[in-house]
């Protein structure tokens, strides 16, 4: 990675720069291929996989520009150009979908993204290995539960008729019983809570791995120089996991428009649909339950394009800020 830094870019801290290997003299492509032929042969299955399962199906995206009728097939359906996109952008749902999707994305960045970092750092400060391990294992168990179970649990805990938590709050505050799962205002907090509960523990794994890789000599040296735990944290631990945070942030940005279909769909009711509808649920609703395949594909394609733009954009931004970036 470090080798293809453009000359005008900020050079990362000295410790991380590896010396670029000396450029090999250019050889004709044919000889190169022949020389490493078995490596290239081994590459074939991977290429075949991507071609067959990733790139070939993209041909189906053409239906976003057609009035697709399955019976007539891909080739038989009529081209309509950007008609479906026009309908999407001018339709009554677009503003609401965009707002809901972006707001959920923002909430995710603010509350859900930092949570594993904070937890990993706190776990890292724990000195008792047993406690650290068991806490770590305990908090990533929710990751393995399906959204269906998480949603049912939420209903069990928060609904007005038999919800335990709803009951506690009611008896503590003495106020009127609140129906958390039905009220539109509680939709987003519940979604964020669910995400925190389900994903935080799992997310810590990668940061803990990064932390485990920090050279312990650095800490020793710092201690000799008289640095307390706070100083060690600030000058060693945090810089050490910074590249990991950046990479995770870039990867996350590509999924900003993915609001997690299952979770949202399961939590949607008549009362909160206005705040719950996002592109993901809309695509399912329009495509599968309504059978408007072309329109749904157009919506999905739009979402995908935004995802790509965000990945490239944030990668660029990371490099601007002197980080290494993803590619």
């Amino acid at each position, binding site marked *: 990675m470090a080798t293809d830094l453009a000359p005008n870019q900020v050079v990362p801290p000295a410790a991380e720069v590896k010396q670029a290997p000396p450029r090999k003299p250019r050889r004709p492509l044919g000889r190169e291929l022949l020389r490493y032929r078995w490596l290239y042969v081994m590459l074939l299955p991977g290429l075949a996989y991507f071609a*067959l399962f990733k790139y070939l199906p993209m041909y189906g995206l053409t239906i976003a520009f057609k009035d697709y009728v399955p019976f007539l097939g891909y080739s038989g359906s009529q081209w309509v150009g950007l008609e479906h996109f026009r309908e999407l952008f001018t339709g009554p749902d677009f503003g609401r979908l965009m707002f809901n999707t972006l707001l959920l994305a923002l909430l995710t960045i603010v509350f859900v993204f930092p949570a594993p970092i904070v937890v990993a750092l706190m776990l890292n400060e724990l000195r008792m290995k047993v406690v650290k391990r068991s806490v770590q294992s305990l908090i990533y168990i929710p990751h393995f539960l399906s959204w269906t179970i998480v949603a049912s649990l939420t209903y069990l805990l928060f*609904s007005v008729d038999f919800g335990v938590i709803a009951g506690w709050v009611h008896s503590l505050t003495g106020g009127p019983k609140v129906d958390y799962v039905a009220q539109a205002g509680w939709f987003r907090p519940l979604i964020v809570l669910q995400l925190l509960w389900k994903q935080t523990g799992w997310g810590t794994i990668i940061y803990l791995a990064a932390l485990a890789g920090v050279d312990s000599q650095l800490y020793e040296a710092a201690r000799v120089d008289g640095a307390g735990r706070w100083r060690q944290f600030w000058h060693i631990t945090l810089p050490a996991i910074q590249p990991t945070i950046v990479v995770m942030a870039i990867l996350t940005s590509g999924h900003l428009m993915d609001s997690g279909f299952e979770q949202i769909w399961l939590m949607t009711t008549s009362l909160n649909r206005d705040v719950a509808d996002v592109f993901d649920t809309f695509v399912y609703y329009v495509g599968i339950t309504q059978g408007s395949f072309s329109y749904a594909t157009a919506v999905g394609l739009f979402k995908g394009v935004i995802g790509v733009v965000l990945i490239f954009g944030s990668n660029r931004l990371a490099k601007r800020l002197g980080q290494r970036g993803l590619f």
Partner: protein
Amino acid sequence: MTILSRRRLAVAVVSATALLATACSGSGDKEQQASSNELTVMAPLFGTAPDPSGELQQAVEKLVGKKLKITWVPNAEYGDKTNVTLASDSIPDLMVVNEKGPSFVKAAEAGAFWDLTGKLDKYPNLKPADEQTAKNTTVNGKTYGIYRVRPLLRSGIVIRKDWLAKLGLQEPKTVDDLYAVAKAFTERDPDGNGKKDTYGLIIPKWPGFYASASPYDVVETWFGAPNGWGERNGKLVPGFDTPEFLTAERWLRKWVTEGLVNPDFATLDSANWNDPFVQGKGGMIIDVNVRATQLLDLFKEKNPKDFDKVTLVGNLSLPDGKKYSYPFTGYNMVIAVSKQHIRTEEQLDQVLQALDKLESKEGSVLLTNGIEGRNFKADGKYAVPINQDDPKVKAIQNDVDKAFIQLGTRASVGMGAYQLKPNDAASRAMREEFDVLMNEDLKTAVFNPVLGVIAPTSISKGQSLQNIIPDARIKYLSGAITEDQLKAEIKRWYDSGGTQIAKETNELAAKVGG
């Protein structure tokens, strides 16, 4: 690594790649070359799928003279699976399908299914038995399938009989009576535990759309609102655009504010609808009549000695004596014939002949009751289950009840097959009550005049519209929005395409004669 082993590895890698490539290209188009004596079928399933070599399927295949390849799809995901299947390139020859679904209409109009208009009359068992129902199943004047008959009037109110008796109440006859019963069930401690922990009516969040036989739709009809669409001042208008609709909602909202309804009604999954009733939390359910026998069975499971706690009441009248009853469509989905493999009129004729055999008396008995002498015996008009301890017989019974009955188009209203003999007096009495109530309520049934009409805009734009009204209705009832806001939502429906739908509906209804 020696040269030899390296070469061997390479060969392995290359052949694996080749295999992968051929495996993928091969599965696409072919394999579906159905022979003329095989029929592929897709139908809903309500339990475990039958064994294709099971006794019942063998018997059915023998009767129709064709091999059947049936894809059984769990009922809960049937709608989604239908749409996905319609989007694929292999549509089964026979498909149980909701003929009004947008994806089906689009496919049918593009020529994916046979237009059966006027073709069914020469098959004695496929000929529509009822003109009104046949009309209801059409799509803008065209018949795309053989409808599966259901009783025309199935709406009713299930009530806790023992609670009525305990509080000294009569079965309700008018909407005011119903309110009084609900009030008493809520406030006068019908279960006698000294706590105020019951409510009158149980309603779930409804998974369907406006005019889809929800309890709300039934109540609106009682108050004189149209069933789906109705004529007002010589024009067809959607039911929610009438003063009667608003009156009904106001009445129901009072129920919610006074706590006569389960507090979680906006989120209660309709799959759990029975639970609060059986647990003694609520005392009434407005739904199809068979829910009464279902609940009776559940009480019986809990306590076989004392279970006769359920009664069924029909549709209610207004205080001034006017009565409007909520009818169903008279059918539930149709069996459509695909054009993918059945290409010529002769082939179609063959398939319809096979279907005709399937819906004959003999076929209906097979699909609805099973194999006589194996899993049931006939007793007058009833079928009595026998040999149910034998696992093989139990399998036949399962195949009938959970699967094959879905292929029958006529049996559920007593055409052809036997009725199941209820095994206790209470259930028997309840069953007989169904017919009495149905005949009584049919006199005041409010039919939807435009069931056979589908406005093109509702197919192309329906996705943005369909949730507006049912959502607004629930929001209004739960107190989240005011009546003015409810009216604004109705206006929003018109503004986002509803005006166009109303216009097209009127035009089409005039053209095809409603």
